[in-house]
């Protein structure tokens, strides 16, 4: 660690300060999290009987498709047999482990009766009708699978090989199980709202929610991959693999197109186009989300810009913003009840969110520095 600090001080002091800032935020977040567990949700959040879910759930709903990077990349590289993608599996899986870790911690802090959270694993209690239960089980299992997938990266540093051999032998089973579990919980996240036909705004409520969430997860995961890989490779001074990037861009474009087709089809089928043309907040929000999150990335990916190696990065950034808005509307703004009070997050809610996420980013950066995330031939001279 000390050498890393010294080296950073010399080469890029800005990065060092950023790391200190992340560390400070993380420590603050941990302290406030403990405070929240001790005093309860009332004093630390602004959630209330009309908005029983707050910013934490919105962040979870956003981070899960982002962490789905591992799912999309495993699917493409192991099952579509695209060797090139092997290079990005490790960064994507690591993002997955950390992303789901952050989600897990936020959920734990969010539930009021956290001291008996393990009831979701009690076979005598679990409700198989409940998509929430199904998501809880799938996410837990899937996190285990991601840890298995990333284990070789950690173990190879100490040259421990036996577990890695076993994992590599079963990698198709492990990756396959991960993909099935992802397909289940990514779509079920949308199914969560099927029980709220009279609560969620009609522009967002549709029986097709599970399908929409699924395709949104695939393109969001690809976006995250494009962003993470661009950043890592830039940081390491490795030239980008243009062909790979063009293909990631095309896969994104394909999934965006499917998403748009289903969304538009649903609006037309349900006769909700007039709602879209109504100049109220919801109509505008729907357009805003669609333009930023779908049209702009598609415009980048379908035009000549795709030849530019930064195209998937920028398309990804916009798609991510779009997904964020979408999940924010579905879990908060569009779920408004007839209510005398409005929910805006308490500063402690925001500080805890930022803190836990900062911790995640810091951990990612450290692992990316100390372990071999990229294949041998790209290894930069510094390691």
């Amino acid at each position, binding site marked *: 660690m000390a050498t890393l600090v010294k080296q950073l001080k010399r080469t890029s002091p800005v990065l060092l300060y950023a790391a200190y800032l992340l560390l400070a935020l993380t420590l603050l977040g941990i302290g406030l999290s403990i405070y929240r567990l001790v005093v309860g949700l009332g004093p630390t959040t602004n959630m209330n009987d009309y908005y029983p879910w707050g910013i934490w759930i919105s962040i979870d709903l956003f981070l899960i498709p982002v962490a789905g990077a591992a799912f999309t990349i495993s699917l493409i590289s192991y099952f579509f047999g695209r060797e090139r993608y092997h290079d990005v599996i490790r960064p994507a899986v690591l993002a997955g482990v950390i992303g789901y870790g952050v989600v897990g911690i936020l959920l734990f802090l969010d539930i009021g009766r956290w001291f008996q959270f393990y009831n979701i694993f009690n076979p005598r209690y679990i409700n198989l009708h*409940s998509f929430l239960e199904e998501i809880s089980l799938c996410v837990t299992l899937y996190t285990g699978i991601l840890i298995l997938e990333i284990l070789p990266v950690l173990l190879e540093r100490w040259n421990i090989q036996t577990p890695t051999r076993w994992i590599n032998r079963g990698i198709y089973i492990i990756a*396959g199980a991960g993909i099935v579990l992802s397909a289940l919980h990514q779509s079920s996240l949308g*199914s969560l709202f099927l029980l709220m036909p009279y609560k969620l705004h009609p522009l967002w409520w549709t029986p097709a929610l599970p399908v929409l969430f699924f395709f949104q997860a695939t393109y969001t995961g690809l976006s995250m991959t494009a962003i993470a890989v661009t950043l890592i490779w830039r940081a390491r001074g490795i030239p980008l693999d243009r062909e790979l990037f063009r293909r990631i861009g095309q896969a994104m474009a394909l999934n965006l197109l499917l998403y748009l087709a289903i969304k538009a089809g649903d609006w037309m089928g349900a006769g909700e186009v007039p709602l879209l043309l109504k100049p109220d907040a919801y109509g505008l929000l729907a357009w805003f989300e669609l333009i930023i999150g779908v049209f702009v990335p598609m415009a980048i990916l379908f035009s000549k810009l795709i030849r530019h190696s930064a195209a998937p990065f920028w398309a990804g950034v916009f798609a991510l913003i779009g997904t964020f808005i979408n999940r924010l509307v579905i879990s908060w703004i569009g779920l408004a009840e007839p209510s005398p009070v409005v929910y805006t997050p308490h500063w402690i809610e925001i500080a805890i969110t930022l803190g836990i996420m900062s911790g995640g980013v810091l951990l990612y950066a450290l692992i990316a520095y100390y372990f071999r995330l990229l294949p041998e031939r790209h290894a930069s001279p510094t390691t």
Partner: protein
Amino acid sequence: MSTISRKDFLKILGLAAGSAFLPTVRAQAAIGEADDHVAMLYDSTLCVGCNACTNACRQWNHTTPEPDAEGLHDAPQALSADTWTLIQLYKEGDEYAFVKRQCMHCVHPACVSGCPVQALQKTPQGPVTYDPSRCIGCRYCMYTCPFHVPRFEWDEVIPKIAKCTFCYDRILDGKGPACAERCPTGALIWGRRADLLAEAEKRLAEHPDRYVNHIYGKDDAGGTSVLYLSAVPFEKLGLEDLGTEPIPQLSEDTARVVLPGIIIGGPLALVAIHWISKKGAWEETWPL
């Protein structure tokens, strides 16, 4: 919500291929059983707003009054962790009416369908009960309930969900709900659901001029155990039109199709994709 066209669209997508076989009779069968559930009938035209019922609820369930600013009256504004039932006044010009709010004890409760740990349960007698020893405090029930009923003890370090239990402890003792037994005017009565429905039909038939011609809760949201009669349109009392399909139907049907579909179809699809790509069939055409 135009569910017909929605369903058509889903069929076009071929996603709900199995939905044609889904047991739509299930709902009917369960409503048959609901005949014997305990229920309440609240006749808004007979209610004088005396709050005998809400006080009875407080006494029996030991909830804390929520006084107004002067501290003179117990004046809760809405259902809360401490207020499981509430009499609200609707007033427009000279016309006014009361309405009693509480858990509807739905025949097909969405809260029960969504609760991950079966902390909320539909008892065989009809009441929907809550077991804090199971609850994880996720608050999903607060969103799934179409009547905005479950409330949360936000200020407790160890919080619980709070809502009307239909005085299930009294029901098990062979008594009626505290609120209905206290009502002095007969506006709130309790009994077998089928008998109360018959009574409501009778009142509608005898005084068609007095009532809106609808028993709210007979089929609304798939049927509820708290039934309402009113002289003013139900929406004005805050009893919205929620259709007649049980709220959990779509969610549970989707689970029945999608979950086995992905668990069985997923691995098969993966094997197929792997096999095709091994043959190199998509090498140039598939845009990945």
